[in-house]
């Protein structure tokens, strides 16, 4: 069947049929192929992109490339000063932020509250940071949308996550209490352990990362004094690596240096919340399901298009067979046409995805409550889908051609059914 001669004749016929076909018909078929390609790549790409957006935000705004945290059975990272020195000595390290972390309770409106009123309280994690270091690692200052960012010398001032403030909570949830009537400049009470201190809200953090939007940030020395820690041990160390550095390799280097004896060493990927990993798998399955349906619809469409094309041209096919052109050469001509439609459709689709949609979604992500959704289209996966589309189209193009070619030659020439 696939003799060089049949391929040559098939190509000869296909080129001329495509070149002299109706532009409208060709355009319509290619349009269908483009839509199919987009369905294959974009639907699953957006589903995964919603979660990728969340992971990306978690990575950039909270964990950075590597995060060291206290071991499960310890309340802080022991031997932190030496560990910090080790981390800073690594050539791959670009910036480091050491964090203190302690649970606390916030209270607002305590001055105007009557003895019989229910206290307006909310709980959250209080993070003590060096504002300069933290901003260098996670760019936290960019998340402050009201008020201003912390300065190293700020005394009794805090940044508060939006979801600790009632005006930013979309739905009242009795399990997630929020403070009412609190804005920039409002004084609130901060209780850590048995220590209570009055602080001023200096800024409000808006982020889709829970670790930012549900927590409170203050200068590290202030939190240290609240919790009474003076040994230099911290609870977290976030590390930003130099561009191009491999987090896995750095994690391995830290482990070789014994960092894992005192801290849990994780790359940003390791530190992703488990629910995000689960959602990615689920969305991948959903995306594959949608794509498969798209692929089946596309193959049926191509089958119908090629069948109508071949059936209405059965006289043409009959003449070809009559003058001695082999059925295989005719079938191959339709296969070439199918490949042309699928390849051109995919090529236009690739252009749309990589030159338009991916940059567009990066510039204007989909605003979801838990993430800024982007379009994820890894080149390898996309090319695999192109191949899948072409193979499916080839089968869908070959079958109807084969069905028409095997008809009686004379019946085809004479237009007899």
């Amino acid at each position, binding site marked *: 069947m696939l003799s060089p*001669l049949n391929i040559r004749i098939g190509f000869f016929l296909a080129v001329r049929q495509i070149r002299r076909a109706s532009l409208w018909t060709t355009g319509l078929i290619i349009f269908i192929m483009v839509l199919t390609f987009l369905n294959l790549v974009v639907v699953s790409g957006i589903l995964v992109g919603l979660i990728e957006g969340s992971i990306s935000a978690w990575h950039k705004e909270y964990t950075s490339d590597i995060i060291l945290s206290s071991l499960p059975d310890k309340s802080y990272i022991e031997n932190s000063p030496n560990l910090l020195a080790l981390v800073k000595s690594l050539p791959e390290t670009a910036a480091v932020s050491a964090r203190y972390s302690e649970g606390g309770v916030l209270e607002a409106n305590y001055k105007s509250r009557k003895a019989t009123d229910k206290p307006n309280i909310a709980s959250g994690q209080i993070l003590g940071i060096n504002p300069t270091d933290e901003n260098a690692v996670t760019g936290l200052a960019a998340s402050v949308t009201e008020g201003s960012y912390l300065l190293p010398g700020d005394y009794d001032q805090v940044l508060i996550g939006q979801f600790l403030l009632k005006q930013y909570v979309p739905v009242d949830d009795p399990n997630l209490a929020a403070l009412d009537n609190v804005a920039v400049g409002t004084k609130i009470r901060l209780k850590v352990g048995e220590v209570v201190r009055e602080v001023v809200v200096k800024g409000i953090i808006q982020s889709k990362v829970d670790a930012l939007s549900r927590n409170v940030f203050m200068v590290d020395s202030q939190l240290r004094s609240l919790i009474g820690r003076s040994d230099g041990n911290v609870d977290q160390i976030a590390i930003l690596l130099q561009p191009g550095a491999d987090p896995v390799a750095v994690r391995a280097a830290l482990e070789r240096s014994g960092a894992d004896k005192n801290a849990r060493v994780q790359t940003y990927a390791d530190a992703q919340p488990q629910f995000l990993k689960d959602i990615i798998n689920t969305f991948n399955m959903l995306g594959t399901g949608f794509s498969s349906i798209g692929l089946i619809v596309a193959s049926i469409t191509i089958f119908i298009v090629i069948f109508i094309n071949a059936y209405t041209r059965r006289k043409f096919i009959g*003449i070809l067979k*009559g*003058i*001695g052109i*082999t059925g295989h050469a005719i079938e191959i001509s339709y296969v070439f046409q199918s490949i042309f439609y699928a390849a051109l459709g995919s090529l236009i689709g690739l252009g749309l995805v990589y030159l338009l949609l991916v940059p567009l979604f990066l510039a204007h992500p989909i605003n979801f409550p838990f993430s800024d959704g982007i379009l994820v289209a890894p080149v390898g996966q996309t090319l695999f889908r192109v191949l899948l589309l072409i193979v499916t189209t080839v089968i869908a193009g070959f079958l109807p051609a084969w069905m028409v070619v095997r008809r009686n030659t004379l019946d085809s020439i004479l237009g007899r059914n």
Partner: protein
Amino acid sequence: MIETKNLTKTFHTAGIETRVLRGIDFRAREGEFVAIMGRSGAGKSTFLYQISLLDDPTGGEITISGRDTGTMRPEEKIAFRLNQFGYVFQDYALLAELTALENVVLPLLMQNRGKKGAYEQALTALTSVGLGDHLHNLPSQLSGGEQQRVSIARAVAHNPKVLFADEPTANLDRESSARVMSIFKDLHAKGQTIIMITHEDEYARFAQRIIHIDEGKIVSVKKEEHAAIALPAHF
């Protein structure tokens, strides 16, 4: 060269049996020009399709150059049609998306003659039928007579052993018909075997033998003594 014995063809349509050929014994020699005549529905086209291997008979034998075609596989028949036969149909049967040159060159390419050689041969064939300046025209850009000449060029470009023509002038005006028949006359003069169906007595006279078919049987055979020599005055 071509011989049939007791050739029959029966069609079954919606449970109705139609016996179109009822036992035809026929023989055509190499280089002979045979005209087949008969009224519509007599079975002449069906007979031509059987002996040109475009269709399979219901019964009887067809022998071509000593080869029993009943034992041929479909692929062999396709190869036989490609290499040994040429066809001229009433409605030209040109491929609409192919230019005149491409229509003629296609069977030559299928014969694996080499691109350059095939195109040269196609060019020669088209020039010989007077279409050397219409090489790149699509069939839709040609008149009926020109299309039929392209069809003849395609049929003879590879020097087939037999040229089959099914009412080649039926759709043409008198002038175009004359030109087509003139080409047939020249081909025959060069030794081409031609088997042609026609309704026109004046064109049948070009043949050496005229066979009349009626009710699926040969009812008369007439020899035209001066067929290849004498032409009506208007030719």
